[in-house]
Structure formats: structure tokens, C-alpha cells
């Protein structure tokens, strides 16, 4: 049986004095063994909250609904949302799911060497492998492990947190904006590393705002807008011709394409409309859009009443030619 993570109708709300933040609404997707799913969207759309919800790391003022079934190897299926903290702490975090955090340099303790931090992770997770071996697999030389975080370049710090995330040999890797602030060669190297993890039989959930990084590794692209997954499609199909108007707008904003911004601004997550949240910014909207569009459950799906047509040419050829 292949391993998978199946997220169904996941919703996360934050309760603030006088307001409720709709951070994630009714999100469904699946990540399978050997695959990389990229969750893309602009900052503040709820992407990172999704990662924290799956890891059970949300603050106390959050309420979560829906399910996230983790099926790996011979272990019985586990619903990450319903699982108690004890189970998450002892069997999931670091062991079945590894988190590559945002801004690696800030995530490492400045007063201890990379080796001390990697060794601690290995010890706590009961992995007898020597730190050097794990570091070598992540592309680090043993002497680089003896440095303090401020002595590491951005790329090296990235490899250190990758090694720490892999210390417990997790099946699923969640990478939360692993490339923000890195230059292109380092982005490329990080993406190659994530792709290798997926090819090794793990699964990767890449959370990013960088469409080009996503294009390098992802098998599937899920687009989030205003707390909802509005589009979910195979990567080649997506980049050949996204069907959701917001996804099309995002692609068209790339400097390599039209470099034109999407007009207007996203709605506040405290004040989401009842219908399609993209309506005020969309040039295809009609009266139907005041009702919330359903995405359905197909592998290639779009939550829009008036999706764009699929491109006529063969999507794969188009993808390669570009």
C-alpha cells in the first residue's frame, strides 16, 4: 500500500477579540509517496497556517475542523487533526513528518554549533546514525558542522535545517518557504534536494510564494487564495494554462511573462465575502459568483464558476518548449 496524506475539508479559525480570522477554509488535497505538492499563494493567504495545523503547532486561540489522514507503511491510519498532543509529540513530529522551517538562520540557536543541534535531534528521535553521515547526505562537510549559525552562509544553514528535519527519517517533509531570501543558485540547489527526497520514496509538501521554484520540483500545484484552495492541478497542466482566473493572474504577473499585477487587493481574512473571494478582482465574474464555487474532487479541479478553457495545444509539449 502506498503511503499518503489526505487532507479533507480542513478549516482553521483564529479567535481574536472582536474578530474571527478565517485562515484556512475547507481545504482538501492529497500528497502521495514519491510526489511533491506545491501549495502556492501570496503572503497572508493561510499557507503557513496549513503547515502548522498539520503539525499540531497552532496557538491556543485556534479551532480546527476537518481531517488529515496520514497513512504510512504498516502503521494504522492516523488523523493528525484529531490526534492528541502526546501522540503527535511522540510519533509524528520529526518521526513521520519533518518540518523545514522558514528562514533557517533564524531557526537555529545562535549559541550552539550546527553539530550540537543536529546531534540533539538525532538523540531525541532515537536515531543512532552519526551526525556526520546525515550531514554528508544533506551536502555538508563535517568541519562545516562545527560552525555556529552566524558562520554559516544562507545555503549552508538551509542544509543544516534540512538535515535536522531528516534526523527522524520522516516520510513526509513539509517545507515552509524554504527559499525566501536565497539567491537563484541556492533556490535551485534547495529544489533539487527536495526533488531528491521525493524521488527517494518520501513525499514533499512545499509551501511557497515562488512560482518558479514550485515549477522546478512540483508534480502538482495547489493555489490558495483568501484561505481556500482555489485550484489543484498537475504541474505541467497548470503552467501550460491555469484555469482559475487568480492562478492565471499570478502567472501573468511573473517578470518572465506579462509582469502585470492583478488589479485590486485580496480580502481581509476577518471579513471574507459569502461568495467567491476573488470576485472583486475578476474580469470573468457574473451574478453566479455571489455563490461560493465548489472545487469538486477531481485530480484536476478548480473552484470557479467561469474557469478558463484548457489550452488547445498539448500541455506537456508547451511546458517543455517554454
Amino acid at each position: 500500500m502506498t503511503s499518503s496524506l489526505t487532507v479533507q475539508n480542513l478549516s482553521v479559525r483564529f479567535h481574536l477579540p472582536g474578530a474571527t480570522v478565517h485562515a484556512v477554509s475547507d481545504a482538501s488535497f492529497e500528497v502521495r509517496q514519491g510526489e511533491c505538492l506545491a501549495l502556492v499563494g501570496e503572503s497572508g493567504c493561510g499557507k503557513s497556517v496549513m503547515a502548522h495545523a498539520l503539525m499540531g503547532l497552532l496557538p491556543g486561540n485556534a479551532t480546527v475542523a476537518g481531517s488529515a489522514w496520514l497513512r504510512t507503511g504498516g502503521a494504522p491510519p492516523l488523523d493528525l487533526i484529531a490526534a492528541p498532543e502526546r501522540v503527535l509529540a511522540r510519533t509524528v513530529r520529526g518521526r513521520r513528518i519533518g518540518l523545514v522551517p522558514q528562514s533557517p538562520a533564524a531557526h537555529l540557536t545562535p549559541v550552539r554549533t550546527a553539530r550540537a543541534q543536529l546531534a540533539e535531534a538525532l538523540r531525541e528521535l532515537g536515531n543512532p546514525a552519526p551526525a556526520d553521515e546525515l550531514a554528508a547526505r544533506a551536502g555538508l562537510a563535517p568541519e562545516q558542522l562545527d560552525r555556529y549559525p552566524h558562520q554559516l552562509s544562507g545555503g549552508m544553514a538551509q542544509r543544516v535545517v534540512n538535515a535536522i528535519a531528516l534526523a527522524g527519517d520522516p516520510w513526509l517533509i513539509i517545507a515552509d518557504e524554504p527559499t525566501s531570501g536565497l539567491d537563484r543558485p541556492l533556490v535551485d540547489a534547495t529544489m533539487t534536494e527536495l526533488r531528491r527526497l521525493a524521488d527517494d520514496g518520501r513525499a514533499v509538501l512545499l509551501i511557497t510564494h515562488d512560482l518558479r521554484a514550485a515549477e522546478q520540483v512540483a508534480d502538482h500545484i495547489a493555489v490558495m487564495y483568501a484561505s481556500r484552495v482555489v485550484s489543484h492541478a498537475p504541474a505541467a497542466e497548470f503552467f501550460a494554462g491555469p484555469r482559475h482566473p487568480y492562478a492565471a493572474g499570478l502567472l501573468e504577473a511573473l517578470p518572465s511573462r506579462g509582469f502585470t499585477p492583478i488589479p485590486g487587493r485580496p480580502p481581509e481574512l476577518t471579513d471574507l465575502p459569502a461568495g467567491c473571494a476573488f470576485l472583486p478582482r475578476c474580469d470573468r465574474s457574473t451574478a453566479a459568483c455571489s455563490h461560493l464555487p465548489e472545487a469538486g474532487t477531481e485530480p484536476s479541479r478548480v473552484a470557479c464558476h467561469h474557469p478558463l478553457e484548457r489550452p488547445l495545444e498539448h500541455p506537456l509539449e508547451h511546458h517543455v518548449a517554454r
Partner: protein
Amino acid sequence: MLRADGITVAYGRQRVLRGADLAVAPGVVTGLAGPSGCGKSTLSRVLALLLRPDAGRLTVDGTEVHRWRHRASRDLRTRVALIFQQPRLAVDPRLTLREIAAEPYQATGRPPGPADELAEDLGLTPELLVRRPHEVSDGQLQRACVARALALRPRYVICDEMTTMLDASTQAHLVARLEAYRRETGAGILAITHDEELLTRWTEPSGGPTVRMS
């Protein structure tokens, strides 16, 4: 012309710039590219009069700069504005977005200017202007930082990896806003980025040069 000649900067014993030259002409976008760690950000701080170089000469429209940071004359230091890569590290977390956008007026003892209109123009609603940095996204905060940078209508704007943290649509919007400002005022823009595609798209319309550091 904002011109740096033979700029040398060392942090402790580590020299990060050795005799760097750069000219930012008014009216065009000058590109500056190079790998991380090559000294792009250090040079941008020198150009914005925020860091005194160990050697070299900086002139702003022909006037040589002798004093730096708060010692620089108000006229000189408000002629160059700097937009940073990480908006969160570039704002006072105690201020609201409206106060951040209006900081330059207060700092120079001027009556409050049209900060609200500028912020609105950059896509910030009145509802967002009353929030503090931790209550908004990176993209929204960077919009306030751009409003702050343009408040005193600088002659030169230095954008140091301004959009690296932002999604494609916000990036395109902020670059379009700066291009509108350049066309309207004839200001010179220095676009610092390691993204070659962005660099080409940004410098092309004005035909400005691209400088590569290594």
C-alpha cells in the same frame, strides 16, 4: 547623478567592498546584480548615506558627502531613499502602518503630508493603516515601506531586493508604482536584485544600464 567612486568598506577585518564605483542617473532605472555576499547591500547603505565608507567618494547631484547618518544635512539625506529586503526588520513594531508611512514628515519636522493618499495609492486601505506590523502580511508591510520611502519625494530610490519576499502579483504592483513615480518625477532608481528576469523587465523601459558585482 548619485555617484560612488572607489568605495571601500570593511566590517572588522573583513573587507566587503574594495574600490566599488557606481553611478545612478536620474530618470532611469539602473540595475545592480551579483551573488549573495558580494556587497550589494553594503553599497546600498553607503549610497543612502547610512554607512560611512572607509575610503572613497560619494556625490549627490555634484555635492560631495562628508557627513553620514544623522550628521548628514537634511537636504542631502532626504534626497536618497532606501527600501529594504525585509520590511519587518525595517519598521518600528510599535507604530501603525499610517505612522510608518508618515514617519519621514515627523522626522524632518514637516507638517503631516499626504501619507494616507500615498498609502492608498500603494493598495493600503484605511482599515489596514490602523494596524501594526504584526497584524499585516509581508506584502502589506512592504507597501507601507514604499509609501514611507516616497513620502519626501526623493530624487533617488534604492530598492535592495525589495520584492524577494513577495508574491508575483505584489512584486509587479510595487515595481509598477515605482516606475510611475520615476516617470512622474524623473527620479533615478537603483534596482538591486539577483533575479535576472526581474532585472531585465525593470531596467528595459528606461534603457538604464545594469552593473554586475562579483
